[in-house]
C-alpha cells in the first residue's frame, strides 16, 4: 500500500512538474505581441501577408498587420512607433530606407523590442536581429546565368536596372556583369536605369530597343517595376515583330505571369514572399521565446524559383516546400534554442 502511494505520488508530481514546465516554456498565444509592417499596398507585400496568415493559422498566434500610407521612412517611423506604444514586442519590418531605418530600430531595441527585416536588408551594422528574404546577389546571378543559357551563350544583352540610389541595384548590376564576363560571346550592349515607375520604364526600355533593335538579343530585369514595364514592351514587340528577344525578369506580378502563359516572354525569377512572411514571424516568435541568433545566422534566405510556361501552375507549391525546409533548418543555421 505504501509502495502504491509512493508510486502514485511520483506519477502525480511528475505530471505536475512536466505540465508546469511546459506551461512555463510555451506562452499563451495571446502573450505573443508580434507586429508586421509594410510601407504601401503592393502585390509583393500582399503575398508576404498571406504567408503570415498561414503561419497564424498553423500556430494560433495572431500578428498585428499594418500597411503604411506612403513609401517613406518618416511614415514607417510614425506607424511603427505607434505600434510599439501599443506594447508590441517583436516586429517584422520592410525597411523603407535601408540606412535611415536603423535609427528607428535602435530606439526599438533600446526598449527591449526585437526587429526582423523582411524583404530588404538594412545597412550593416544594424540593430535588426535577422533578415528574412531573397538572396539578392544569388537571384541576380541565377537570372543572368539563365539568360545566357536561353541565348545559347552567344548574344547581346540589354541590362535594365531599377533605382540607382538603391545599394541592391549595384549588387545586382555587379552580379550580372560577373556572369556575363564568364562567356566571351555574350555582351552587355546597353544599360538603362533610374526607373521609378512602369510608365518611365516603358519609355526607357522602348528607347533602348529603338536604339539597338537589330543588336539586342536578350533583356534582363532585376526589379519589379522594370519587369512589368519590360513585359508590356516585349509583349507588344513580339506581337508585331518577327524577332524574338529572350527575357528574364523578377517577381510574379499577374501581368508577367499572363505574358509567360501566353508565350510572349520566357521566364521570371519568383521570389518567395509567402515564405518570407511565414518565416519572418516564426523568427519573431522564437526571439520572444528566448532563442538567440547564431554568429553567422543573420540572413535567412527564403529562396527563389524560375517561373516558366512549364511550371506556372505549380511553382507556388515549390515555394511552400522550400519554406518548410528553411523553417526546419533554422535551428541548424540561424538560431540557438533558449538555454535550459
Amino acid at each position, binding site marked *: 500500500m505504501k509502495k502504491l502511494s509512493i508510486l502514485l505520488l511520483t506519477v502525480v508530481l511528475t505530471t505536475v512538474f512536466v505540465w508546469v514546465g511546459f506551461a512555463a516554456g510555451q506562452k499563451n498565444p495571446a502573450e505573443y505581441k508580434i507586429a508586421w509592417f509594410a510601407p504601401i499596398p503592393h502585390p509583393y507585400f500582399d503575398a508576404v501577408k498571406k504567408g503570415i496568415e498561414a503561419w497564424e493559422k498553423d500556430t494560433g498566434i495572431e500578428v498585428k498587420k499594418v500597411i503604411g500610407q506612403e513609401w517613406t521612412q518618416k511614415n514607417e517611423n510614425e506607424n511603427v512607433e505607434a505600434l510599439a506604444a501599443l506594447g508590441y514586442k517583436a516586429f517584422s519590418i520592410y525597411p523603407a530606407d535601408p540606412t535611415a531605418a536603423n535609427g528607428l530600430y535602435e530606439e526599438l531595441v533600446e526598449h527591449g523590442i526585437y526587429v526582423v527585416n523582411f524583404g530588404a536588408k538594412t545597412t550593416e551594422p544594424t540593430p535588426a536581429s535577422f533578415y528574412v528574404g531573397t538572396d539578392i546577389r544569388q537571384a541576380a546571378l541565377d537570372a543572368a546565368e539563365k539568360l545566357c543559357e536561353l541565348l545559347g551563350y552567344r548574344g547581346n544583352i540589354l541590362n535594365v536596372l531599377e533605382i*540607382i540610389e538603391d545599394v541592391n541595384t549595384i549588387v545586382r548590376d555587379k552580379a550580372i556583369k560577373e556572369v556575363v564576363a564568364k562567356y566571351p560571346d555574350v555582351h552587355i550592349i546597353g544599360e538603362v536605369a533610374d526607373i521609378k515607375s512602369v510608365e518611365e520604364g516603358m519609355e526607357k526600355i522602348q528607347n533602348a530597343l529603338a536604339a539597338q533593335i537589330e543588336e539586342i538579343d536578350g533583356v534582363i530585369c532585376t526589379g519589379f517595376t522594370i519587369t512589368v514595364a519590360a513585359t508590356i514592351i516585349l509583349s507588344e514587340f513580339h506581337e508585331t515583330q518577327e524577332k524574338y528577344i529572350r527575357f528574364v525578369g523578377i517577381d510574379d506580378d499577374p501581368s508577367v505571369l499572363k505574358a509567360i502563359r501566353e508565350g510572349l516572354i520566357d521566364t521570371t525569377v519568383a521570389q518567395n514572399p509567402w515564405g518570407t512572411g511565414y518565416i519572418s514571424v516564426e523568427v519573431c516568435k522564437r526571439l520572444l521565446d528566448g532563442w538567440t541568433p547564431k554568429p553567422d545566422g543573420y540572413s535567412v534566405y527564403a529562396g527563389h524559383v524560375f517561373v516558366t510556361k512549364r511550371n506556372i501552375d505549380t511553382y507556388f507549391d515549390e515555394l511552400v516546400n522550400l519554406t518548410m525546409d528553411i523553417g526546419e533548418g533554422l535551428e541548424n543555421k540561424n538560431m540557438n534554442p533558449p538555454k535550459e
Partner: protein
Amino acid sequence: MHVKKHNRQLTLSERREDFVKVGFLKSLLVHPEAGITIAVVILLIVFSVASPSFLTAYNIFNVARNVASYAFIAIAQALVIVGGGMNLSVGAIGGLAVVTTGYFIDVQGFSPAIAVIIALLVGLAAGAFNGVIITKIGINSFVATLATLFVFTGIVYGITKGYPYINIPKSFTIIGRKGIWGLPYLFWLMVVALGFIFYLFNFRRFGRWLLATGGSKEATRVSGVNVDRIILLSHVLSGLFAAIAGVLWVSRMGSAQPATGQDWLIISFAIAIIGGTALSGGSISALGLLMGSVIIVLIRNGLILLGVNIYFEQTYLGLIILLAVTVDRIRAFYYQRAGI
C-alpha cells in the same frame, strides 16, 4: 509695352498684325513658342546626325506615342495653371481612371466602351470635387489638391490592394498600340486635344475668361464674370483630361496598373511651363504644350540612343532643358532689341 505683350497671350488679330507689320521671320520672334520650337529643331538635327537609329520608323512611332502620353498629362495641368491655380492630384485622378477602367472591364465584365465612359465620369467628378473645395470652401488649390491627391491615391490602393487588372481585351489596346500613316493613334488623338485647347482659348468665351481669371482674378470678377464658376469648370476639364490620359495608358499597357500616375506631377508642370504656360496664370499655348512634350521626350530618347552614362542621365536632362529655356531667353532678347 513689348515685354508686357510678350508675356501675355496674344490674340489671333495681334498675331496677324505682327505678321503684316514685320514680316514672317521677325514675327516668329514675337511668339513665346518660337524659342522652344527652335530648341526642338536643333535637337532633332543633333540626334538625327548622332544616331542612325533616331529616324527609324520604330523610333518615330515610339517618340510620337510618348509625346502624346505626356501632352494629355500636361493639358490637365495647364488648364488649371492658366487660371492661376494648380492641380497636384493630376496623377491620382489618372490612377483613379486607370483603376476604374480595369475594375469595370476585368471584375464587372462591362464592355470597354462603358468602362471608359465611367472612368471619364469619375475623372470629371474628381475634378469637380477639387473645384468645389477650392471655390465653395475657399481652400487654396495647392492645399485642396494636395489633400485630394492622398484621398484619390488611397481609393486606388483600397480598391486594388496594389494588384493590377490584367484581363483587358486585346481590342482595347488598338488605340494605345496601333497607328495610321506611320504615327500612333495616340498622336492623332493628341492633335485633336490640342486643337480643342487652341479653339477653347481663341474662340470660346470660357477660354478668354479663364485667361483673364489667371491674369487678374479680381479684375475679372469686377467685370461681371463668375470667376468661381470658371475656376470650377477648369478643374472639371483638368479632371477629364487626367482621366483621358489614364484610360489611354490602360490601352497602351494592356493592363490597369494601380501605380499609374504616381510620377505625373513633376512632368505635368515641367511640360506646361516649358511650353509657355505661365505659372502665375493668364497664358497658355497649344503649340507650346506640344513642343514642351516633344522636347522632354526627345531628350530622354536621345540620351538613351546616344548611350550616355546612366548615372549622369538626370544631369544631361537638366542641362538640355536649361539650354532649351536659354534659347527662348535669347529669342526674347532679340525680340526686344528688334523693337517689334
